[in-house]
């Protein structure tokens, strides 16, 4: 991505939600083939208010409210993409995407290969993910890492305002189905946007905080937790490098391996259920291709393997937390 220029331009403060909205507005304004389709994206203003105001601006043909028919409107997005449009399909939350998984896996991810390359499926699926708002089990899954198992799709997980603002543009420019998972807790997060930055690289992970002693690999709403942990550890003399994975499929091996080669220690933080999580895949790659670079066991901090409960104290106990990250790193690294 283009490097920030000197402060001739002032940073713009906005929320993650607003960044998502501006990204969609830009896409609609710049490409007539693009439209938004999903439940309550229009009249209601978006379940998490991301698309608020866009119906008035672009009309019902570009901001298309759908009935509660996840399977059909996801499949319709796939057909529309194959036939020349560039849909942005919003699935209200990833929990409901299970109703459309057949279309995503058996059609979107499969048709380009199965047709011998005759047809591409260039579309974007946006969905809310994650827990932390006491919405209970059926509204709190983190399935992005699980989706990353599927060949034929790309999986993006914006964890910053900048990524929320610019990943969509890159995703729409991609000839493949791209899934973007927006974390429900991040929507209200505020941050500064560097006006000189207008693109992000959706192929690369990003070092959010350099460090020499241990690599913290994470994404999404676990990113702020990892950074907070790193700050605390720094006071103790432990310098943790925080890497924002940003793209879960295909994973950016280079950035990950390079970091581990320097720190020789790794902790992966991931809101998905531990078994079969994206953190497992990263650990497996390291245990194979970076085995001799590692000086310590690879630790994982994931969600507990339970349906996420409603009660606040139990939900908190079920999710990765800053304290656990600090504890785990302390167990791996002796302060210098």
């Amino acid at each position, binding site marked *: 991505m283009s490097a920030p220029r000197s402060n001739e331009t002032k940073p713009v403060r906005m929320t993650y939600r607003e960044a998502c909205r501006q990204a969609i507005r830009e896409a609609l304004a710049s490409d007539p083939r693009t439209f938004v389709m999903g439940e309550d994206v229009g009249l209601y203003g978006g*379940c998490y208010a991301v698309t608020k105001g866009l119906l008035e601006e672009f009309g019902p043909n570009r901001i298309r409210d759908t*009935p*509660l028919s996840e399977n059909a409107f996801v499949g319709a997005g796939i057909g529309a993409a194959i036939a020349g449009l560039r849909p942005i399909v919003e699935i209200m939350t990833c929990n409901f995407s299970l109703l459309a998984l057949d279309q995503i896996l058996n059609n979107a991810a499969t048709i380009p290969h199965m047709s011998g390359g005759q047809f591409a499926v260039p579309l974007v699926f946006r969905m809310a993910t994650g827990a932390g708002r006491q919405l209970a089990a*059926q509204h709190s899954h983190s399935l992005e890492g699980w989706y990353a198992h599927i060949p034929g799709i790309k999986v993006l997980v914006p964890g910053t305002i900048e990524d929320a603002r610019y990943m969509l543009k890159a995703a729409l420019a991609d000839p493949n189905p791209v899934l973007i998972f927006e974390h429900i807790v991040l929507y209200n997060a505020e941050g500064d946007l560097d006006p000189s930055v207008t693109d992000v690289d959706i192929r690369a992970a990003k070092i959010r905080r350099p460090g020499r002693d241990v690599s913290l690999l994470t994404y999404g709403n676990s990113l702020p937790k990892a950074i907070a942990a790193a700050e605390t550890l720094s006071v103790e003399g432990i310098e943790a490098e925080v890497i924002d994975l940003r793209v879960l499929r295909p994973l950016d091996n280079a950035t990950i391996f390079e970091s581990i080669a320097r720190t020789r220690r790794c902790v992966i933080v991931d809101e998905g259920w531990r078994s079969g999580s994206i953190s497992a895949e990263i650990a497996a790659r390291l245990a194979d291709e970076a085995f001799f670079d590692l000086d310590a066991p690879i630790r994982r901090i994931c969600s507990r393997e339970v349906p996420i409960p409603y009660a606040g*104290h139990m939900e908190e106990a079920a999710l990765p937390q800053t304290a656990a990250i600090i504890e785990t790193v302390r167990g791996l690294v002796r302060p210098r």
Partner: protein
Amino acid sequence: MSDKPHLDRDHALHLFRQMLRIRRFEAKCVELYQAQKIRGFLHLYDGEEAVAVGIMQMLEPRDAVVATYRDHGQAIARGVGMGPIMAEMFGKRQGTCRGRGGSMHIFDRATRFYGGNAIVGGGLPVAIGIAMADKELRPGAVTACFFGEGAAGEGAFHESMNLAELWRLPVLFVCENNLYAMGMPLEDAEAETDIYRKAKVYRMPGEMVDGMNPITVEAAARRAVDSIRAGNGPYFLECRTYRFRAHSMFDAQLYRTKEEVELWKQRDPLARAEAWLRENHMVSDEEMQRVAAEVDAEVEAAVAFAEAGTLEPVEELERFTLMDEVPQ
């Protein structure tokens, strides 16, 4: 069998009281949500009380209920204790689900209340299965399956309707048609907006009912339940009703006008029931005040029960993820 509900004073007052219990309970929930005692998503039943109350009049202990995330009304009308429901929303161990479910997921074994499903349409296939089991194990039992008109958009609705009729299962489908699915107006969501007509294409009997009147709902429920218990298979009731409050606590209601809401509030099932009772001189002011006082006391007791509740120790977090045995 007659399908006239017995309209004596006691029954009329009973219906009013049941609806009032729901109305006052929901009002208290709003208060407690603002006080942040209740968190997460909260979907209230104001305006739709006549549906749950009318249907439940025909259900017996042996019968089963499947509900949605908008489940306080069904749970209270079914006889689930207000205390455990409130405690559930407080996230307390004494809640119906030990705090794991919250407002959207009230479950209660004692009353065969099978939840509180927050996946729109997700409860219908489960109701089919409960009815399959009952047909074998509890002949004559009926499963009442509640869902909003939005669920008619889901494939699960279609598949379940067909299975129910094909296998002649004892299911009472209760569509709470409040004209909106979140912000989606029915006419923008369905090519056919009379939901009960959809039953016909599965050869299932169905009718549309005034869902703002517990008497008409009960009368229809009697026809339906009699037919189901007689072994004629499933029955479909579309109850036309209206949600007085926002969809949930995060809803600017951009999709409907204040005027429309006011128009429907003039058909408030509680106001109408109370008026009817008074016009027919069936209750005195004192009696009405006593009923209100008793209901308020019940609600307050529920809050006290919830407040006094304890938190499930986090050591118990993983408990019930895998069961050690099948509860009997």
